[in-house]
């Protein structure tokens, strides 16, 4: 089951560049939350702070508090523990090229020392079914490389890989921006199904996508969160002028 995320006074830097400034918000459990905003506004950096990926960059720095469920992730836990609870899907599909489809999905478990073969089989099957890829790959699970799939299939494979470690939160950083419309709509259907079990945070450049999949939407601009509200409100009656300008296409 998903858990809520509470962000208090989050600041992040790349070197001297202050990319995120005083972000405060509450992301509800078991819902999809979309983050929109022009390129470079800090929304990707923001999701990377939610699983402590930001600090893997040597010049990345974070201050503030992020609570996932009741876990203060910058205080109470190690990055690897958090990343197992907070899965991530990246902008470009990135399956492990040397691994079979099966091994890609099982990678998170196997690399963390989980070896029970029978339950691995079950988890792989369940994860691929959850990511709506099972029917397309079930005959080549161990024969084909993850890299041999199409772009859209690769992205669903990456979702299956993230789901296999049984996270509570799923972060998606523009998961469909490199995909064609058909694959994109498959990913969106998937988000729709998954949000009953996981808390989903999706960064997107596509405002229709945000409107289609998310209950809540946050608008980022220049490293600040301008507005956070129900998706319906953001797109029909935003409180802030800048949000309105952005969603009506006047800039960005």
């Amino acid at each position, binding site marked *: 089951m998903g858990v809520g995320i509470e962000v208090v006074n989050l600041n992040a830097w790349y070197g001297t560049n202050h990319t995120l400034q005083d972000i405060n918000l509450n992301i509800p459990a078991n819902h999809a939350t979309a983050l929109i905003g022009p390129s470079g506004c800090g929304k990707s950096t923001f999701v990377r702070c939610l*699983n402590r*990926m930001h600090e*893997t960059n*040597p010049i990345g720095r974070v201050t503030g508090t992020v609570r996932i469920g009741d876990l203060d992730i910058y205080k109470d836990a190690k990055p*690897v*523990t*958090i*990343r*197992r*609870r907070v*899965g*991530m899907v*990246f902008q*470009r599909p*990135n*399956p*492990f*090229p*040397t*691994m*079979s489809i099966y091994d890609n999905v099982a*990678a*998170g478990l196997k*690399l*963390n020392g989980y070896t029970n073969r029978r339950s691995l089989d079950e988890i792989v099957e369940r994860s691929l079914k959850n990511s709506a890829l099972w029917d397309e790959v079930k005959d*080549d699970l161990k*024969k*084909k*490389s993850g*890299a*041999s*799939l199409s772009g859209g299939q690769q992205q669903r494979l*990456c979702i299956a*890989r*993230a789901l296999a*470690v049984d996270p509570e939160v799923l972060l998606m950083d523009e998961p469909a921006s490199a995909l064609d419309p058909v694959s994109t709509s498959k990913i969106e259907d998937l988000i729709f199904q998954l949000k009953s079990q996981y808390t989903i945070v999706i960064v997107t450049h596509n405002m229709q996508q945000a409107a289609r999949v998310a209950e809540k939407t946050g608008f980022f601009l220049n490293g600040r969160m301008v507005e956070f509200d129900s998706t319906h409100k953001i797109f029909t009656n935003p409180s802030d002028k800048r949000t309105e300008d952005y969603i009506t296409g006047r800039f960005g």
Partner: protein
Amino acid sequence: MRTLTDSLITALAIVATLIVIAPLVAIFAYLLYKGASSLNLAFFTEIPKPVGESGGGMANAILGSGILLAVASVIGIPIGIGAGIFLAEFGRGTKLANAVRFTADVLNGVPSIVMGLTAYALFISHKTPFLPFTGHFSAFSGGVALAIMMIPTVCRTTEEMLLMVPHVIREAALGLGVPNWRSVLSITVKTASPGIITGCMLAFARVAGETAPLIFTALGNQFWSTSLNGTIAALPLQIYVYALSPYDDWHRLAWAGSLVLIVLIVLAVSLVRFVTSRGVLKGAS
């Protein structure tokens, strides 16, 4: 005009390719011409005959080369790969990494005769602390000398290959909660392994034909010898000795030895490629 330029460039590329291939084909053809006639079963089963007796073979030298190269690979490849992983993954940007990279590049350019002299000074002229089989001519010292020649090549190709692994692949592993060291070993190194293996094979092929470092260390041997503690025969050494001799049948054996050396290197490299390419999945890059 455009098609003309196109054909011209294509023709130039083909000519350049031929010029690259020509020396290899020429060497191989000449070796076949000079050496093939002296190849017989005795060459592969017998040891060299004393001066004055005809016949004999280089069986001990083939075995000796195998032992020397095994010692060199067992020592050189792990150290080289380890140093390469350090350069690309853990030490990136540190002073130590820059020093190691610079050293490896310089070491790569050191002539093999200098390497031989150095190995002599380090391992042969007196006993080296903590290192067995040193203080006198020995097969082990020869292997170590070859290993030292392998390390910079293996180290730098490993680094280059690791740096070619896309950043998104590393992020994928880290994003799954895999510890960094585990991600490096199981994901990055594995993804780069075809290139790393090629680097190891290049280093192997390069030292397989080295003579100079062995003159000062393994010394050569006219008899069967498999001890790491004693002098040992090696194909390049045997070729060197026979080619400089005044006897015609030794010259012929030297040619045959050269042919066998080249063929064995090609076989060894192909075998490693075959073994490591099996089990590669469909569509894997």
